[in-house]
């Protein structure tokens, strides 16, 4: 609550160092992401214990519902159950990490409410460009690994580098594809960073502008931010899966008959969107 009553919102784009372990800098974003991981582990292990007891629990059903619907989405986009099962763990881990951290990042104890030597102690994990960029590189790297696994090493390179004498159009397309891979990585990380960081600034500014009416105005924006946090986590998950399926050869889905073909055509349309944005 102290954060909302302050005179002017303080905006820092980069995370600040809270303390050092040797020469390793521990920033406030890292502290909150460690807490987020602990929360995720606690939730999942509680759900696991409920499953083992064979009993029922709200948490267990919630986790199972989430996993099932995310798995269905993955199968729908990739179009191959075996590949989807292997892609799913990474994608759902990223989703959970961002979901829990986005929600933790706007709780009242983050920001300037709790300070340690005049430095905010906690800050949303995705409000740190380092985290989002690292995870975007991870997901794009996984997409490359899948492409190499399916096309072969030289087959993967042939997707980008085509001889201009054989096929001038595809050669130009391949060159554009190289640029697109980098811009996708940057856009993927900037999208979630911008939304989460922008959301935190928005809350601080609304709290500042509304001053004494903040208790009335802020809950609305809080609901908005909870929604945005969940949607952005889902978008990150969705794009990771879509980029991985982009690298898989088209012919593979054709071998599985018509029912595998149909979702693939729908998935291809979705994949075009991120490339343009």
């Amino acid at each position: 609550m102290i954060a909302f009553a302050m005179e002017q919102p303080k905006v820092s784009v980069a995370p600040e160092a809270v303390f050092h372990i040797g020469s390793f800098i521990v920033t406030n974003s890292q502290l909150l992401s460690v807490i987020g991981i602990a929360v995720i582990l606690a939730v999942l292990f509680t759900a696991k214990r409920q499953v083992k007891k064979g009993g029922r629990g709200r948490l267990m059903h919630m986790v199972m519902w989430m996993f099932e619907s995310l798995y269905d989405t993955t199968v729908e986009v990739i179009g191959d159950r075996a590949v989807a099962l292997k892609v799913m763990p990474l994608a759902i881990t990223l989703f959970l990490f961002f979901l829990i951290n986005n929600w933790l990042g706007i709780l009242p104890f983050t920001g300037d409410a709790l300070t340690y030597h005049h430095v905010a102690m906690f800050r949303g994990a995705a409000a740190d460009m380092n985290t989002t960029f690292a995870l975007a590189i991870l997901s794009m790297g996984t997409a490359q690994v899948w492409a190499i696994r399916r096309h072969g090493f030289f087959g993967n390179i042939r997707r980008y580098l085509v001889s201009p004498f054989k096929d001038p159009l595809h050669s130009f397309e391949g060159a554009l594809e190289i640029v697109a891979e980098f811009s996708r990585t940057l856009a993927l990380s900037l999208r979630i960073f911008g939304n989460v960081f922008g959301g935190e600034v928005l809350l601080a500014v609304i709290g500042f502008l509304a001053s004494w009416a903040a208790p009335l105005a802020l809950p609305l924006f809080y609901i908005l931010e909870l929604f945005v946090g969940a949607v952005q986590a889902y978008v990150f998950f969705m794009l990771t899966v879509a980029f991985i399926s982009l690298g898989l050869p088209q012919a593979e889905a054709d071998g599985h008959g018509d029912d595998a073909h149909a979702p693939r055509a729908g998935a291809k349309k979705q994949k075009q969107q991120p490339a343009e944005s």
Partner: protein
Amino acid sequence: MDQLPFALAYAIAAAGCGIGLGLVGAGAVQAAGRNPEALGKIRTLMILAMSFVDALAIIGLVVALIAKFLK
């Protein structure tokens, strides 16, 4: 007058995104009008497409903030 560049950095991005969001919403409403049974799927797709468009405006906001606070 000093604040103008930062305001413009957001305003131009938001103007384009306004048009984009309008197109997404119009498309979703038309699709729902043609096929009301698919409303659930259309809503999911609409929110997904909106978040792609939204991201550009928010990147504009972040660029403005970075330019303002990282001098």
